[in-house]
């Protein structure tokens, strides 16, 4: 019954040159080469990509939801990192 001995791979597709690879989903495969080929057939049937990455899911380290308070929120408070934080004199409307 089991098919979990195939590994789960996360698939990332670069849709056009100059753009980032974007996560599109996952699939099961025996190894990374096979995963790459399956990714081509599963996620780029309409030539949606110019380049594909596959990453075995267990190799991804992710931030945790419960860490948001210490991990993400402090970054929110540094408004001075955004251009909108600064007020320009009226005479200048573009900078």
């Amino acid at each position, binding site marked *: 019954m089991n*098919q979990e001995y*195939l590994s789960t791979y996360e698939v990332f597709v670069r849709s056009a040159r100059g753009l980032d690879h974007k996560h599109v989903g996952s*699939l*099961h*495969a*025996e190894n990374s*080469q*096979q995963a790459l*080929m*399956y990714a081509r*057939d*599963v996620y780029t*049937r309409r030539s949606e990509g110019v380049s594909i990455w596959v990453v075995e899911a267990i190799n991804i380290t992710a931030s945790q939801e419960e860490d948001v308070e210490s991990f993400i929120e402090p970054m929110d408070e540094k408004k001075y990192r955004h251009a909108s934080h600064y007020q320009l004199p009226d005479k200048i409307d573009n900078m």
Partner: protein
Amino acid sequence: MKDEINCTELENLTRFLIALGDDSVIYSHRLSEWCSNGPYLEEDIALTNVALDYTGRARLFYQYAAKLEDNGKTEDDIAYLRTEREFTNLLIHELPINDFAFTMLRQYFMDVFYCLYLQALSGSKDESLSAIATKALKESHYHLKRSEPWIKLLAQGTDESRQRILRAQAELENFTGELFLMETWEVQLVDQGIAVDRSLIQLEWERQVSAFLAESNIQFTQTQLQVSGGRCGIHTEHLGHLLSEMQYLQRTYPGMKW
């Protein structure tokens, strides 16, 4: 006199295109039988893609043949309105899909063959033919990248998968030789630089296949006397059933648009 020569040349070329189209259409039909029957979903999708590549090829060959024949017939008339004795595909294409091992081993044999054959055919003096070959060659390169690891995996996986590969090989060893045979008309096309001398590919094909199978401790074999006859319309019993299914609608409701 000159016209007569051109006439045979044209006839030969059309015959050749239809034969190549038959190879592809029959093979794609077999592959399409895997749709919703694959060992898992990813592989199901991948197999269908190969089937689609061959359907595409068949259409290009037939369309070109129809254009040359110029008698109002279409690709579909060629595919759907000829009988089993008129089909000229090489027999290996029509064998039933059997199990996954058989399907993959045949695929592997074909892939090695088509990589060599289409490479050579892409140098054809006939520009349209060369263009079709160039396009198809890219597909076959990819197919080979898929079938090679599968053969290795199945040959080295479990006892059962290895047995299945060996059994498949025993069933196929009668049929691989026909890939390298030619009728007189094909030889004439070779002399004109339009077709490719199949016999020149044979050695390289056998070298690649035996070296690759040896990596999995399988000895490549071919029977002394190879079964042949496809190009003359002498087929296995399987083709009639395949056609009766494939042509069912066109035969039941003649002359209609779909």
